[in-house]
């Protein structure tokens, strides 16, 4: 029972997700058991429709599961109200989306400031923190630009800065590179890797691009709503059923 090492951040137990589309039921996740610890860099990969996004959405508290339990920082997510989940997302989780999802009427800097302003941080303080994050992703000279004036790679870097601005415990990136060319895809992945090792921020990112998995320590492979493989390249066997014993 007792484990040495970094504390548990997210825990999924017997988690299933069913979508109702009119009469029909679509099982997106069957029974998933999964534990993610602080500081991990986790890649979720698998074919289209395998349930990667569904998994990311449940871990990111964007959706609630149909069965099983999802715990974030030990807290059963199903027991939280919508407002409490919003607060938890705001302070504890950063999001990077496939299509960047920057607010078009806000400048790059204002986009990065947004999560802080939602939590009620003063404008001056938010601006200072946002500038720092923009510098971190190498876009401090584009602070005043609106998203439409930025390239895809630049937009995604702004989005990463936005995801990190609240110093969240976890960043969820669902296919962050799918809309980027391979060079930018690599750069974004590298950036996330660097932020993970420099700041210790936990990353969960999904992809179906196998090339991006090189040097990712933990890889979760999905198929048909199930995790079929959960391993790190260096220590193949150790992690497979780590969640089962908890």
């Amino acid at each position, binding site marked *: 029972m007792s484990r040495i090492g970094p504390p548990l951040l997210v825990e999924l137990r017997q988690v299933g997700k069913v979508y109702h589309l009119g009469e029909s039921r679509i099982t997106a996740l069957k029974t998933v058991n999964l534990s993610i610890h602080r500081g991990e860099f986790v890649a979720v990969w698998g074919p289209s429709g395998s349930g990667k*996004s569904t998994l990311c*959405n449940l871990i*990111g508290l*964007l*959706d609630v599961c149909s069965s099983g339990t999802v715990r974030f920082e030990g807290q059963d997510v199903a027991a939280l109200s*919508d*407002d409490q989940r*919003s*607060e938890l*997302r*705001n*302070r504890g989780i950063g*999001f990077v*989306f*496939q*299509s960047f*999802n920057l*607010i*078009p*009427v*806000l400048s790059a800097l204002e986009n990065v400031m*947004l*999560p802080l*302003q*939602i*939590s009620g941080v003063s*404008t001056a303080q938010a601006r200072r923190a946002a500038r720092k994050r923009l510098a971190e992703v190498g876009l401090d000279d584009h602070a005043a630009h609106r998203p439409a004036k930025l390239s895809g790679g630049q937009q995604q870097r702004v989005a990463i800065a*936005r995801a990190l601005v609240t110093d969240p415990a976890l960043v969820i990136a*669902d*296919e962050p590179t*799918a809309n980027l060319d391979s060079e930018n895809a690599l750069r974004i992945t590298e950036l996330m890797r660097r932020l993970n090792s420099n700041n210790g921020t936990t990353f969960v990112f999904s992809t179906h691009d196998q090339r991006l998995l090189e040097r990712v320590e933990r890889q979760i492979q999905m198929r048909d709503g199930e995790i079929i493989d959960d391993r790190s390249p260096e220590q193949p066997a150790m992690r497979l059923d780590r969640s089962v014993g908890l």
Partner: protein
Amino acid sequence: MMTWIKLALRNLFRNRRRSLFTILAIGLGFAAVNTLGGFTAYIFTSLKDSYIYAQGNGHLSVFKTGFLQEGKLDPTRYLIDEEEMGVIQQVLARHPEIVVVAPQLHISGLLSNGKVSTIFIAAGRVPSAVRRINEHARGMIGKIQLFDGKSLEDDVIHGIGLSRGLAEQLNLDLGSDAVAMAPTVSGQINALDAQVFQLFDGPVEALEDKLMSVSLKFAQSLYDTGSVDRLTLLLTNDDTTETVRAQLAGELAAEGLKLEVKTWNELSTFYTKVKQMFDVIFLFTFLIVFTIVVMSVINTVSMAIMERTREIGTLRALGFKRRGIVGLFAAESMLLGILGSLLGMVLTLITWSGVAFFKPTWIPPQITRRVPLEVYLVPDYMLYSILLLIVLSLAAASLPARTAARMQIVGALGHT
């Protein structure tokens, strides 16, 4: 706070044309309601001034209790005799706010040109007192002469005025002689020589061939009495009408007199009817504007929500609460309401100054002369309009905004 208002404002600018049309709809609605409101305010004031001052009816009238209901059946019983008048005068003298006291006796009978005769009804009034009432009128109203010919005089008893219809029926003109006949208060038939001093237009069609105006002394001679049937009182200030009425009623009752005091708007049925009509028109206009504003705001907000579904999902993911989403769209529609109201105020001011500059004239009902058409600026209406339009915009936005706030985040982000 400023951040969200800034965000709302920028969002409005995203679809300029749509926002502009909504603001225009609100502005035009605002201007329509306020211009119509300003026009009705002018109409009401004119009718009121015309009744009180131009027609010389004053603010208050004192009758014997029951006169208005049964006065015609038993004239003697409901007349105010000289002795009672003395008591009333004493009470009135205690009130400096009463500036003119004008007794009247309304009569009816037959008017003859020597060959044929026809029915007339007439108000017997003291010409000098009526003139003093006229002189108190503000602006144009007191200066409009409502008749052709010369004015009646207190002591030139035989001078009378005829409505044009009545004069036509008897083939009388200015200067013609006629004879008025009527039963006296004691029941004998009496006749009095008269000369046509003036011709005027009857205020309503039905009275056009019956109405006559005479001096009080003429009326009293014809009825063979020293009594009057009412006292009309002019006050210094319109707003004191109700208070003075209440005071007088109390004081007169304390003197043991069975009298009732009526206000000008209780007696002016025309004013009341016109007011009711304009109130209905106003209500209709208001409802139309209301509907247009609500519909265009609902439309604008719904479209914005549809276009920005993914953005709503993003904001929710970043930690916006449901009420934050409602607040964001509420702020946008409130800005629409505010900007629309501002535009509306400008449009109303333009209309107002246009009317003030070009001074259009018109012939209102019941008056046969051209008079200037005016539109008043009513700050109260403006204030209520602004508040109401903002509240309306908010209410209209709340429905679609609530739906937006209840959207599934994952669905809003668009499942990939």
